[in-house]
């Protein structure tokens, strides 16, 4: 059952999280060396007493895995071999599974800029060059110790059903505007177009409109147009008659018919082919459909709500979206804000998801550490509320007491912690380092698409390919 909830962020009372072993001094370190012995880590044994390290050593990955599974470790110092990139990913995977927030310091012979950037992206605490320097290790250890002293802040209290996956949570001005439009449109049967970036909650808004509208007793049928293979989407929407095509083994009732007397939510509508858009237009205009392979027109009474994260105006200009369909759908338009534009809604949402997943995983989560909150506030949230939900669910799985701390957050988020030293030089970055870092950021933004990245950077793709090779990206 959907509901709209506005909650106020409670004033917080600071309470201290019990300090971990690392905070009080002894850092438990697992050093993982080459196959033939500790090699470059030999001096580590000498430094251990002075640096307050409780050190153990594993010769190789399998032995290290056994030791990791057998106890709590604050830090793993891993010497990377020839396949440093792959090994780094392996370590991040392995430590993600090891509960207790074990951090990783990778050691490599002359680490390339590409490796440094990758380490940073993966949330590795530090990438140090071999031979290992005492000062560099001491600095990294100081960061492990400081991360272990976090202050707990109580989460805002929740209201109502903690199992409600479709609750609209938020009281920011941007969301209040959304609620106003929803309230106006819900009582009508007008077609609604919901716009907003990925993960902003378009389906939640559509469900809420449905549940507060005249068709609330009817079904709510959601179709994700981006998920379904293009060749199957038509039959999924309109159904098909037996034998209409290979694989049409029986008559199938499509989503339009299934939603009869209720609401059909077409998500990611911009992902539809032009041919299918024409058929949707006909269904919207004439309120009837034809099953694939069937000649009969079937009347349908559905309220249509469509949504997209794309710029439909741009798609119309490029000829990828029908203008007439756009105007049919956009009778009322709701624009959802990005999470970063929703201010303190972030804390309310954290509280909501912490309760939701706390209940699922049988954990009473009632606090968030100051450092974790800072990391969550500084994150860019490209996946908006959906990404936040994932992050809190993951944290709820690994948390062992009632407080979500930075160690429970994904490595990628922890990598954004202010004050992460430059992995390659330790001083101000050189022009090449800054360029490599920027290229890596753009590539990450374009999902690795070189053409798109070259366009953003304003350089020829061949130049970009050359630079990627040069920087080992």
């Amino acid at each position, binding site marked *: 059952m959907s509901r709209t909830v506005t909650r106020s962020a409670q004033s917080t009372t600071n309470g201290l999280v019990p300090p971990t072993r690392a905070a009080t001094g002894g850092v438990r370190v697992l050093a993982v060396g080459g196959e033939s012995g500790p090699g470059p880590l030999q001096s580590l044994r000498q430094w251990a007493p002075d640096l307050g390290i409780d050190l153990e050593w594993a010769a190789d990955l399998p032995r290290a895995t056994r030791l990791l599974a057998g106890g709590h470790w604050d830090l793993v110092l891993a010497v990377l071999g020839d396949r440093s990139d792959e090994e780094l990913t392996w370590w991040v995977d392995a430590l993600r599974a090891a509960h207790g927030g074990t951090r990783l310091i990778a050691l490599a012979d002359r680490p390339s800029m590409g490796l440094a950037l990758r380490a940073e992206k993966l949330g590795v605490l530090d990438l140090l060059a071999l031979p290992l320097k005492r000062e560099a290790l001491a600095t990294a250890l100081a960061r492990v110790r400081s991360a272990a002293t976090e202050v707990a802040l109580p989460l805002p209290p929740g209201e109502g059903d903690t199992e409600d996956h479709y609750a609209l949570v938020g009281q920011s001005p941007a969301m209040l505007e959304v609620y106003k439009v929803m309230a106006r449109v819900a009582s009508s049967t007008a077609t609604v177009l919901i716009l907003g970036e*990925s993960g902003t909650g378009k389906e939640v808004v559509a469900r809420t409109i449905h549940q507060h509208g005249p068709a609330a007793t009817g079904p709510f049928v959601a179709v994700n147009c981006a998920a379904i293979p293009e060749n*199957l989407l038509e039959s999924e929407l309109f159904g098909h008659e037996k034998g209409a095509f290979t694989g049409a083994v029986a008559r199938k009732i499509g989503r339009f018919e299934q939603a009869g007397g209720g609401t059909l939510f077409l998500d990611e509508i911009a992902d539809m082919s032009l041919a299918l858009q024409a058929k949707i237009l006909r269904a919207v205009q004439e309120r009837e459909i034809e099953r694939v392979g069937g000649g009969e027109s079937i009347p349908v009474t559905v309220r249509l709500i469509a949504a997209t994260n794309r710029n439909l105006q741009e798609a119309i200009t490029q000829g990828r979206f029908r203008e007439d369909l756009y105007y049919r759908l956009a009778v009322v338009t709701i624009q959802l804000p990005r999470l970063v534009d929703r201010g303190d809604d972030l804390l309310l949402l954290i509280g909501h998801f912490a309760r939701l997943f706390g209940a699922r995983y049988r954990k009473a989560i009632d606090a968030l550490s100051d450092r974790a909150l800072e990391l969550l506030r500084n994150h860019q949230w490209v996946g908006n509320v959906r990404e936040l939900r994932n992050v809190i669910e993951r944290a709820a799985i690994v948390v062992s007491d009632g407080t979500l701390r930075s160690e429970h957050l994904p490595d990628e988020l922890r990598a954004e912690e202010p004050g992460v030293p430059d992995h390659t030089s330790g001083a101000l970055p050189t022009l090449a380092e800054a360029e490599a870092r920027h290229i890596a950021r753009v590539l990450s933004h374009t999902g690795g698409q070189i053409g798109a990245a070259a366009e953003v950077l304003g350089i020829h793709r061949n130049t970009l390919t050359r630079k990627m090779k040069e920087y080992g990206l």
Partner: protein
Amino acid sequence: MRVEQALRLLPNLEALLPLRGLLLTSARPDARVQWGSGGPYLTVGKREVEPGELARSMGRVLTVVTEHINALFGAYIAALECQERGDAPGAVSALMGAGRLEETVGRLSQAQAWYEVSLALAETLQDRHPEIETLLSIGRTSLAAGEYAVGARHYQRALVLSEAEFDRGAAVDASVGLGDAAFECAAWAGAQAWYSRALRLSEAAKDRLRLGQIEHRLGLLARREGNLAGAGEHLRRSREHIEGLDAAGAARDMARVLDAQGELDAALGRPGPAAGAFREALAWVRRDQHDPALDVSIRLHLAELLLATGRWLEADEEMRRAEQLAITSNQPRGLVRIYTALGTLRGRQGDETGFVFFEQAIALCRAFEGPAVDEARAFHAYGVFRQVSGNPDEARAHLERARDIFRSLGVEAEVERVEAALANSHDVDTPAAGAG
């Protein structure tokens, strides 16, 4: 352009398989879709490919293809030269080399074709060892392709010949192969007999790696038979044999044993040790030449463990890591297994849109001409998914398709499992059924 669109423009020609592989490995997720509501349903078909990027990578692929074809041509020329100078064993060896090359790159039917030619020649020789070796190779590739009856037939012939020739190593290989064929067909008693025979022969030869491999199989068999304590004992012995060996491939065998240990611990309701065993198995996979297919397989088992313990998010993440690995290492067969598992996961979550994973798995089977057994498994799981989601007609069609494929492969145990599911489907359809 999306991979699904790009694949539609590519005719289903065997010669174009490398291009299809390139399409797969060049596919990148669309960052806009990743966090969208379609994100959880992303498959390789929904990834993006850039024609320009394909063009740039083509040279590298063509070089690999050219080298491969060069080596095949070379092997053939070598076979001709051997024939010309009357060296038939040399010709067999050259043809076998070509088969092994094809097998290495996963072209099983092509490998079998080379081995068949080799076998015809080997049968004419007085020395029976080349014939035994060829028969073992055909047995191995047949099993890998899911053709268990064909595999068993060749292993049987290899066994008879190896015993006649007092070739103990080959007799062990043939016995293990016969055990594997029986195991795949759920003929547990037969598998037990063949593995035990292989074990006795290996004990006499004190071949630790082989002993470890056979104990591993006996462990898998005991687990299938429900003898979990026995399975643990076999796996312990397997580890003892293999651990510390420097032989080529020993690390890979160790990974397999630990993978089996993980599955056993999971069956014993010990998720912690099970996860530990899987993680250690993944570490062993990295020690030798990385085997992406084995890596994918272990990750899938880990995901299944997480799924069984209700840790859906982590299960999903593990499967996605396996998917990424399968895509970048051109493992369409691994992808088929992953998408079948993801569809099953969504089915358990009651998510009807999960059907997209089965559709993708079946499309990949066809596009990459994978073994029919994979397609049958995908259809079986798809049928069960449709049964649960209340589409009995479609469920029945998928299950019947699975049954027909399994039957054509002679896997009677699977046929029985599918028929049991079909009977359930019938019960659902018939209101009277079960009422009385």
